[in-house]
């Protein structure tokens, strides 16, 4: 196989991409998403862990309190971001509906050492961002009250859990876990999937537009052409993934071991691209090829996720800087599988190439 010929094909495809301005659309997309990054970050983090929302709000909220006196009032007094108002229940609920207060608690007159439980009724506004914030704060207050009640009833308990003493953590934020454990691997994976879809377009187009004969009349062999297209798609993977990491860096999210992550992404991307090429060579028609490939992609993705030390997990570990040297071993394994697939694609392309009139 002549690498110069493959290089020529790769260059042709990349030029075609930039002249059709498809790349412009890809960049627009990236910028469009990054433009709303603050909204997305807050929103997505909150989706991953609603308690994180609390960190974004510094306002003190009013809470209506109805029913009997209880130590709960002292628990509320300890917090300066919740202001308790003693009210009648019906007044309080009407105020809640008008958002004059943000939540209402009703406490019954059950004594602390009663046989049954103390049932506190908590009224919140349905499906509301603010309710999520309130919920987190009131939860802490109620946990304090629960602890107090447990102490009152301690003589009725039989076993006790191993006790752990936590330091003051200061507010719930699970930003780190979301960004490093979910966002980064997905963003790095995205270019690999896009490139794999691209190779299918490039190959099936030659068949469906009947441009293959023209191409085959040049000194380029069929296998060289396929590898040229694969190379063009593969180049885009580290470039786009690198752009994401750079954008994250600009947003103040430092990613460790960027080079190693890009290496993993490139090798994994090459695997997917070769898989796409194989499917495209088999079907030679875009609709079928894309359909089969996207279904196969879901299967591969699910399977990979179920295996410990999978490449996505390694990207997480690398980004969080907890990966040991074991990741080189996995990289070698994935590279080996990719090489095997590459061999299969070459062999298949040679066989197909023989059938094409030169």
């Amino acid at each position, binding site marked *: 196989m002549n690498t110069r010929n493959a290089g020529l094909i790769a260059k042709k495809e990349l030029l075609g991409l930039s002249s*059709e301005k*498809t790349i412009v659309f890809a960049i627009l997309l990236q910028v469009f998403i990054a433009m709303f990054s603050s909204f997305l970050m807050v929103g997505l983090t909150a989706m991953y*862990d*609603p308690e994180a929302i609390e960190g974004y709000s510094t306002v*003190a*909220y*009013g809470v209506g309190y109805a029913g009997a006196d209880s130590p709960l009032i002292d628990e509320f007094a300890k917090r300066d971001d919740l202001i308790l*108002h003693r*009210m009648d*229940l*019906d*007044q309080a*609920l*009407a105020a*809640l509906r008008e958002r004059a207060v943000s939540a209402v608690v*009703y406490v*019954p007159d059950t004594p602390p050492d009663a046989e049954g*439980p103390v*049932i*506190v009724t*908590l009224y*919140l*506004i349905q499906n*509301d*961002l*603010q309710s*999520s914030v309130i*919920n987190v704060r009131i*939860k802490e207050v109620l946990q304090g009250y*629960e602890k107090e009640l*447990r102490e009152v*009833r301690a003589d009725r308990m039989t076993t006790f*859990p*191993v006790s*752990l003493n*936590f*330091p003051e953590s200061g507010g719930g*934020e*699970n930003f780190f876990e979301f960004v490093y*454990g*979910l966002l980064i691997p997905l963003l790095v994976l995205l270019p690999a999937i*896009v490139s794999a*879809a*691209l190779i299918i*377009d490039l190959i099936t187009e030659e068949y469906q537009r009947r441009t293959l004969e023209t191409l085959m009349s040049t000194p380029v062999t069929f296998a060289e052409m396929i590898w040229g297209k694969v190379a063009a798609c593969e180049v885009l993977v580290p470039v786009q993934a690198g752009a994401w990491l750079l954008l994250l860096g600009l947003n103040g999210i430092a990613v460790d071991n960027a080079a190693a992550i890009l290496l993993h992404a490139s090798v994994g991307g090459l695997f997917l691209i070769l898989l796409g090429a194989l499917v495209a060579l088999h*079907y030679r028609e*875009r*609709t079928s090829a894309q359909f*089969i490939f996207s*279904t*196969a992609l879901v299967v591969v993705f*699910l399977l990979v*996720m*179920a295996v410990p*030390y999978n490449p996505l*997990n390694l990207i*997480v*570990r690398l980004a*969080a800087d*907890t990966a040991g040297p074991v990741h080189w071993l996995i990289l070698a394994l994935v590279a080996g599988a990719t090489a095997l697939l590459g061999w299969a694609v070459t062999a298949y392309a040679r066989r197909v190439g023989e059938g094409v009139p030169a």
Partner: protein
Amino acid sequence: MSLASSIRTIAVWEMNRSMTTMGRSVLPLAAGLLILLVLVTAFTAESGVHMQDGMYRIGIDDPEIARIVAPDNRFTAYLDSGAALWENRFAYDIVILNGEVYAADTEKGRAALKTLERDYEGYVSYVAAKEPDLFAAYPLWIDLQYVKSEIDFLATQSGQQVGAPADTRRPPVPSGPVEAVTPPASAMPISEEILREHLADTGGSHPLERYTGVISGGSGMEQFKTPSELSAPLPFDAIILVFVFIFPLYFTSQFFMMSVMNERVGRAGEALLSTPACPAAIVVGKALPYFTIMLLISAAITLFAGAPLTILLPLVPVILFFLANALIIGMASRSFKELSFVSIFFSTLATSYLFFPTVFANTHVISIISPLTLVVLDIQGDGFTAMEYVYSTTLFFATSIILFYVGITNFREERLFSEKPLTSRLVDFVSAGISREHPHISLFLLAGFTIPFVFMAQMLTLVLFFNIPMPLSLVLLTVSAAFIEEFAKSIGLYAAARERPGFLTPKNLLLGAVAIGFGFLAGEKLLLFATLAQITESIFGSVLFLSLQVLWMPLLLHIAGVLVTGGFLLLWGRQGYGPGLIAACMVHSLYNLYFLMGAFP
């Protein structure tokens, strides 16, 4: 041949063709992959998702405590003597010595601590649930009740915050009517066994697990919770609906897009065009099978999720919208890769338009601009009124019909088989709608027809800027709204000038500007009264639709805007279009800002 029968013929033909091209070779493999998918899903469910394994390092001196974190893969636990751990404490994110937890003072250390706290809560619940005296272990239960409160669109005006922060020490007094409420009962209505079962189920759950139960809904048991189970309500559960309902629809529309594209590849559609069927019959006939399939898929998902079938009603315009866009993208793309990228770009925009407003479902009327909000409301059991249906779907119906119309008029040989870049092809599509004999009437109608798209784009900006603090959001809205309007008004003129270079004379420009101005105003008026009355009453509305209060002022503004862009085009040719657009946009923004200042001194 009548229209109906030719539509039927084309539809049957489309079904047969896609079955034969896809059928023989694809179906066996697809079936095999489906079986594999089921197997792999089972395997993944068994082995768990290993994405976040080993994110944190934790050093522990007590095997008893190590057992607490063992089930959580996110931790890699190292057992060692206390002294050795203390020596290497910087290698760990968390060190536990004699029951004291020490976390590294980093983002990661705090995140690890948070995760450990949750795991510990789960462990404590697990131990306590075995207590013989349940109410000693769990003395406090929370009865969670949700109250509905929909705020007025006017609430965010003049910087007022949604949700009143309490700045007074006096209890607030409700201004509306107060209903008498009977205080809730103090006895637990649920038996101890059920409570125990419930406790055993929860504890130490992963954050992502909460999303699995959104569609199926909770049991009655959900109402009572212990304080540590009290988790914040899902603020963005509608994203699940996007995945469940919108994604399959988008995926199916891809097949239609591809079918349209395939007609153009190698002039394959020539045979179809030479049949007696008119373009309208061809397009509708080709789209019909996909429309039916999409409807069936939605119905199947709805039945599977146990949701009411009425949620199909708001999904119909979404399906039409996807199909209409698939038609245009399939007709306009030059190559497969362009098709891929453009459709990904479109799907991102469409998804944000559908998804972002649903965040405010139950909270804010703005949410009603997305049909998906109606789906959310319907699943909650609230339903929606006919008026709400009109509000949220009119834009989708209108844009879909116009796009289909554009597709049908351009479904001709010279348009389908030409090799032109995307933008000039789209310009061709527009210029096809401008008649040679009556260009000004065409411009008038074209301007009117762009209105639904303008509204849609402006709604998208409204949704995106709505949460930004007040003065900035208004400025951003003003400028972007002006730009969208000026752009929409100029495309007819631009297309005409490009198609027929001799068309753009000063006289024609003036006449055209007047026609566009009138058309734009008429379209705006018509659609606005039909739909968005609620939004127009707010300050955001007055930014977007400022031009509606007095008739002659906005008319002059619209005409002036077109004149500015057209003047640039006339003087400098096509290079003048960009600068002309910017100049017109500035004039428009200044006009809007001047009136805003006047309205709110």
